[in-house]
């Protein structure tokens, strides 16, 4: 321990490095000669260092109540304050870790995109820079910039390395989420201007929070602004009925894009709901609570039902993401400490699990040439290791106890039950529980049709091979983490326990 603490030099500026490294990585990857192995190794190096730094940061802040922030002057005038305020607390720490981890996994996993691999890895690193920025930003302007920065490289990833309908999907993704961003931006401006109250326009989270605490936001104002911001975040999450960009984007995106998109990008929405909507607009949250719960239940059930009908394995997984993000919103919508803690837990859990699922889908698509469930069948014979990973991922996703998904779902449902007991209406929990059945149903059904039964004759199975080493390493690491956190959930709960949430005192 002493050795470790002497190692973590306090003066090492980890927070800015977490932003700078991915950008540098993107530049290096792009400039390097167009060689698949070199660029991939460069990406692995940079994302590995980023992950190591974020672990160091975790270790560093664990002794200080899981809060850390730094500020650098940027636009620092008498009328306008937009500074480089960056910082972490328990929630953003988890998201930073998840981002760093998944980018590393993606870098290890991706090898099939051999064309223009320098741009490919550069875009992945750029996405990471955007995501890191969103989770680190402590300033609304900075937050918004990174929010958009994360969007653009993803657009190019889908448009450049996607499937046959990639143009449609990437345009839809870009325009849909961009429109939502604009509405969110209006909300942010309203927040900042009202908070300034005629004085200096200060975009920092701190200033707006102080204004909220000082009671500058009237209830009507809160309800309106909550609506604007919530719409912007809901599209990102995504919530039914604003979700249709997601299945298209996922189906067309390359595996790496899907993993980052579902694993970390969707979390931007729920992260922002907690970070912005709940922390500064508590009265708005109370006014919107019922709507949020209804939307969450709709997303959960709708996503699960949509999964049953899907024929494309990847589309099914995409819809399952909608269902699982519904659980996140359900936890948030209880507006209770437990609910929010487990909502964040579920964000983390879903990030890990869904990455496994999308990697599995990627392997199926690449190795057999199709992801169409009716065309598959009996893959376990030719691809036993793959079948094992697929089964593990599916079981984790359907909430098998002992794996991370169970802890999250159990906690969210417990929080929801707690809330329902408080208002003395019990029946809505039936919908949430029914989705557990549906989830088990579509996953087992998909497994039955794709990996079990007799070996398919509809596609050429002669050249199909099992998981290769780099895929195995990425999947194996993720699966190990899923099991680790499922057995030792306190590792995550400790990080979350100290989270300073203004809201917890309010409701």
């Amino acid at each position, binding site marked *: 321990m002493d050795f470790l603490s002497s190692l973590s030099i306090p003066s090492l500026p980890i927070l800015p490095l977490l932003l700078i490294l991915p950008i540098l990585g993107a530049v290096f990857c792009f400039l390097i000669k167009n060689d698949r192995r070199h660029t991939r190794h460069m990406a692995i190096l940079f994302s590995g260092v980023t992950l190591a730094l974020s672990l160091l940061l975790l270790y560093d802040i664990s002794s200080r109540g899981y809060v850390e922030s730094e500020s650098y002057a940027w636009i620092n005038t008498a009328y306008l304050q937009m500074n480089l305020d960056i910082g972490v607390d328990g929630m953003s720490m988890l998201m930073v870790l998840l981002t760093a981890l998944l980018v590393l996994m993606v870098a290890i996993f991706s090898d099939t995109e051999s064309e223009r691999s320098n741009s490919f890895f550069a875009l992945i690193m750029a996405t990471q820079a955007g995501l890191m920025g969103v989770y680190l930003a402590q300033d609304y302007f900075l937050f918004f910039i990174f929010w958009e920065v994360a969007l653009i490289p993803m657009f190019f990833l889908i448009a450049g390395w996607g499937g046959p309908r990639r143009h449609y999907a990437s345009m839809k993704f870009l325009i849909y989420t961009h429109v939502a961003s604009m509405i969110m931006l209006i909300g942010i401006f309203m927040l900042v201007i009202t908070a300034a109250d005629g004085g200096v326009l200060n975009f920092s989270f701190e200033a707006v929070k102080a204004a909220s605490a000082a009671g500058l936001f009237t209830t009507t104002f809160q309800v309106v602004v909550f609506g604007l911001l919530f719409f912007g975040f809901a599209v990102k999450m995504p919530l039914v009925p604003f979700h249709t960009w997601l299945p298209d984007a996922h189906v067309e995106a390359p595996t790496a894009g899907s993993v980052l998109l579902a694993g970390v990008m969707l979390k931007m929405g729920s992260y922002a709901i907690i970070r912005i909507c709940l922390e500064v607009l508590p009265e708005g949250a109370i006014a919107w609570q019922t709507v949020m719960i209804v939307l969450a239940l709709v997303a959960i059930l709708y996503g699960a039902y949509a999964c*049953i*009908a899907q024929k494309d394995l990847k589309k099914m997984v995409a819809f399952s993401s909608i269902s699982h993000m519904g659980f996140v919103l359900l936890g948030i919508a209880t507006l209770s400490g437990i609910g929010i803690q487990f909502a964040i837990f579920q964000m983390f859990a879903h990030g890990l699990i869904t990455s496994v699922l999308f990697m599995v889908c990627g392997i199926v698509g690449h190795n057999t040439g199709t992801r169409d469930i009716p065309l598959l069948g009996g893959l376990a014979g030719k691809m036993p290791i793959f079948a094992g990973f697929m089964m593990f991922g599916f079981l984790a996703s359907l909430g098998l106890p002992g794996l991370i998904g169970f802890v999250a779902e159990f906690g969210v449902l417990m929080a929801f039950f707690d809330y329902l007991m408080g208002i003395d209406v019990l029946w809505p929990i039936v919908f949430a529980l029914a989705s*557990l059945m549906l989830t*088990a149903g579509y996953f087992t059904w998909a*497994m039955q049709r794709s990996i079990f*039964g007799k070996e398919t004759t509809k596609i050429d199975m002669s050249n199909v091979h099992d998981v290769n080493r780099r895929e195995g390493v990425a999947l194996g690491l993720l699966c190990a983490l899923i099991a680790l956190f499922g057995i030792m959930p306190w590792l995550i709960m400790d990080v979350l326990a100290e989270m300073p949430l203004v809201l917890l005192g309010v409701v």
Partner: protein
Amino acid sequence: MEYAWLIPVAPLLAFVIVGFFGNKTKEGGGAIALGSVLIAFVLSILVSYEYFVTSGLFDSGEAYAPAPFQWLVFGDYALNFGIYIDSLTCVMLLFSSFISLMIFLYSIGYMKGEGARKRRYYAEIALFLGAMLGLILSSNYLEMFIFWELMGVCSYLLIGFWSYKHPEGDAASEAAASAAKKAFLVTRLGDVCMMAGLFVLLFAFKSLDFTTLFDPAEIANVDSGMIILGSLLLFGGVIGKSAQFPLQDWLPDAMAGPTTVSALIHAATMVKAGVYLVARSYPLFIQSADVMLVVAVIGGVTAFIAATMALNNMSLKRVLAYSTVSQLGLMIMALGAGGYVIAMTAGDYHASLGYTAGVFHMMNHAFFKALLFMCAGSVIHAVASEDLRQMGGLSRKMRITSATMFIGALSIAGFPFFSGFWSKDLVFESVMNPYASGLPAGDIFLFLFALALITAFMTAFYMFRMWYMTFKGKPKEAAEHCHGESPKTMTVPLIILSLFAVGSGFLLFVGLNDIITFSVIGGEFMVGGNGKTAEYLFWHVLENKWTYVSLALSLSGIFLAYLMYSRRIINPARFNMGGRSGLYRFLTARYYFPQLYDQISLKLGYGVAKGVDYVDKNLIDGTVDGISNAISGSSDTMRKMQTGNVRNYAAIVIIGTMVLVAVLFILVRFGGV
């Protein structure tokens, strides 16, 4: 007892080792799995010995529950991991690990021809057993639930063991995959209920530890409605796991797995977990007589309808599966009846036989059901068929198997002094008890008692029908291929288990009666162990007139089977009109339960899903695409104005200028600007 946690850890460790390195060893890791279960068994004996004898906890009626480990703490709630040992735990540990030891030993011979897939098999059964042992030792409901679900997954994996490359061809492997899915989903339905029960209890008690939940002072503080709701939801889990009505239908399909797996599921693990949960939750369940009544009725109905379905089934393993469902029904019914008496008489815990009867029958059933399944496995191994119509006359070729299976059949049929005899009569008596004591729902229990008697008759009949069709009569097609008795690793466990099938009933008279108890910290609450002497119990059973009624029914069932299937004096076709009678088809179709399940899942699952998909593609995405199409469409129209013709542009500019000038002129002239 400090090392009791090693009991489940040994097989779990074996799972990891075999799972990763099994193929590096001989026999695909079979020896490692066998070793781990041996360790678990020995440890179980040591722990039980310590609990009963040296620690003195048993004498004071206390459970051993060291301070648990805090697993997950949030809000007011704390979820822990720990161990909880009382005499029920010990009994369960002993017979589970012992029977698993036999099954693992038997597997070495049974799975010999499986090649590389043995690794998977041994890893999965080790995990299965580890989960069961963990469940037995759990100190709270959440821990129990985790192991409970793990078993669900193990059963999924094992039932689907042949879900690809089935030895009997592709159709069979499709069936195995389907059966595995069905088992998982149906039990999952129960699990979801149980999870809801956990929420209710956790909300009410702020903890799921047995030491808290079973504390009378804590129970008194909690709204009784919450306890009733929680108990019923927990029982929902039991209905799924122990295949009770109306979720019984997955168990017969689960026969698609290897026979050893069936033995493991039916005798040592999985379905026994449900009965164990009821027994373990007694302090909560007896808070309401109505809950116990529900438990008893579900058990009784299950016992009856499962027995009827076994009457005309033609598959060796399925007959055994139905008999398991039926016997589980009896156990649940006994537990329910006993609990009902306790609930109504407000706490005379010792007076109730039901608890002892249920647990005792569970133990005996474990022995003879493991025996029967392993005999069936031996037969299937030899003739490569499960169809009773293709067997016959095997007793000459397979002497050990036929003899041991005969013993098992006698035991389950309740032949005097075999183990089934004692426990079954205890069950019957406990069901009769509420009526005999004149309790309010006595009439219902009288009806259940009648069902139980008919079940006893049917049990005897179908077991011997099966035995005669397999081992007597003329050898049919499949029996011709029989290559003689199975290897030693398979027959030795059969012989050992048959000893237990004969003798385990006598354990009742050497102290088991007092051992089957339920204890909590402080010893304030104790069920079972009714303190009667062995002599009293022995004569009590023999003096009871109902003993003779049930005995007569069993014997007549055996005799009827003998006449129909061995002597062929009565032609079975007379009863079923050659298979065309409505009742016959109704039974063959399993009361149309599979269709019901299919319809429900088709309508509620796939049907709605299709609708959702339609809405998604057309309505929601249609709106989104519609908006974008409207925008791009209107811009299409607008840009037609761009002709590209310079002169048009010029004309427009000029006209525009002229209009502007005119407007300005008018404004200046008349508007006075």
